[in-house]
């Protein structure tokens, strides 16, 4: 009996399971709740806005591609697919060069603002939403398009109907785009600058800091557990958004 008691702490699972609460404690001591909220708010504001815009652009582009046949179509599709592999750092750099003071759009003073972050996330989410929507739209039976057309639908009606029929895939596309946007760090770091200020109340507050960029700081500091704890918060937010998507999907089934 004694041996059993002694051998328990030697379980290999022990050390991996125990540390979990510790980083969360560390997180709350280091990150005041208002600060954490401001970071989460910036994260959601930037990603949701970017995804909303990218969805409109992406679904329209997918419809345009899905409803026309032209010689170079395969090439265009390949280019859009390739866009899914756009490294976010490069997008960040390109947007930076555009928006920087010496760049063509420097006069708008957009660098290191949330708008700039939204722009670069649109660039990142757009190809994902377009590609995945397009594959969903192409998957809708021709006979259903014909039925919509035959019922007197205009081109727009037919497209609307096709999107309705492909809604499961289109929602997946939007969620994939959201995943791409909310999880990326390279471009928001570069064009947003990861700025937090100490506000008048002496509280730290995020200006352009998102959860992902906050995580990189922790990673730089070697505070791996805190980084992972922030990641868990990010995933919780993402879970919320996805649950909403799942709900829409399910309601759409009716």
């Amino acid at each position, binding site marked *: 009996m004694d041996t059993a008691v002694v051998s328990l702490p030697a379980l290999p699972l022990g050390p991996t399971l125990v540390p979990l609460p510790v980083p969360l404690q560390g997180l709350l001591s280091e990150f005041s709740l208002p600060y954490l909220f401001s970071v989460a708010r910036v994260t959601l504001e930037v990603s949701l806005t970017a995804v909303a815009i990218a969805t409109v652009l992406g679904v329209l582009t997918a419809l345009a591609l899905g409803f026309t046949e032209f010689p170079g179509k395969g090439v265009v599709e390949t280019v859009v697919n390739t866009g899914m592999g756009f490294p976010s750092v490069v997008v960040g750099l390109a947007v930076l060069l555009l928006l*920087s*003071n010496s760049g063509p759009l420097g006069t708008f003073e957009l*660098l*290191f603002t949330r708008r700039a972050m939204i722009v670069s996330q649109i660039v990142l989410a757009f190809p994902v939403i377009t590609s995945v929507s397009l594959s969903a739209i192409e998957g809708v039976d021709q006979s259903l398009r014909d039925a919509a057309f035959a019922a007197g639908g205009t081109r727009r009606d037919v497209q609307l109907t096709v999107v309705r029929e492909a809604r499961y895939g289109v929602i997946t596309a939007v969620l994939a785009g959201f995943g791409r946007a909310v999880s990326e760090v390279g471009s928001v*770091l*570069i064009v947003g*600058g*990861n*700025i*937090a*200020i*100490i*506000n*008048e109340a*002496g509280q*730290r507050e995020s*200006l352009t*800091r998102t959860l992902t*960029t*906050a995580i*990189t*700081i922790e*990673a*730089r*500091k*070697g*505070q*791996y557990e805190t980084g992972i704890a922030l990641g868990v918060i990010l995933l919780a937010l993402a879970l919320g958004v996805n649950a909403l998507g799942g709900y829409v999907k399910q309601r759409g089934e009716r």
Partner: protein
Amino acid sequence: TESLGANQSGDDGNGDGDGSDGGSSDVGDGSLVLATTTSTYDTGLLDALNPTFQESFGIQVETISQGTGAAIQTARDGDADVILVHARGAEDEFISDGVGLNRRDVMFNDFVVVGPEDDPAGIDGMGSATEAFDTIASEQATFLSRGDDSGTNKKELNIWEAAGTEPSGSWYQETGQGMGATLNQANQSPGYTLADRGTYLSQQDEIDLVIHVQGPLKDGPEILMNPYGVIPVNPAVHDNVNYQAAMAYVGFLTSPGGQTAIEEYTANGQQLFFPNALADGPQFGQYVPQDFDGSAESMRRAQYRHWVDTIVPNDY
């Protein structure tokens, strides 16, 4: 009193002696994992040094450039064999925890306060860093802080503390990024920031920022000094580390050859780092805590006094 040395860490699993596990006995074997800060890597210094080391020892150096914090953490986890960093406080902790040993000074340079050329806060030429920071705060001129707990960031916070100011307001922005990125950001904003001279010099071409307050290298205040140290990981704590190779690397960096190479390394035509491993006089100690204050006495006496002060109980 604080306890010294590596032997205080109660690692009972490693009774079988240090560094003598079969694989690493031959220095010429395998590779060496070096965790370092971005400032040594991004300036190109290591690319200039390491090939010579590889040639003479036949050991491949695998360099991982991270933040100082991450570099030390990597070594703590036993994932690196040796570190080259510049954060004395964290280095001392690393050593007193028993994870690192045999620290050697390698080189130094200094920090500088940089800002836009038109100098909106009017700090140019100030001889005191604290005064400059004070002025920036009262003018509410944009200041970019690394905000990442790095050596530079810690130095900056020291200065604020010394200046007696607690920065707050939207002019004080934390970037949470590396030196290079922070410099770029200061350039774009535009704003002031504290930078290590090496990174600033290597990036001078890309940015319009100028030095407003010099560091001790150019008669600036001493508070802006920036020393680098190399520390191998204790094989008694992590028996997988390549201690032999790590020590060989320490030896290489602190040898006349290595030191000369550091001295001769330039970027944009300027020397970035000043070697300080070799002293003109005899140098007996290898590790001196940063709060050691014995510059006026002979090294051996000073060290002895320090030991007496810190080890022998007051009521002895």
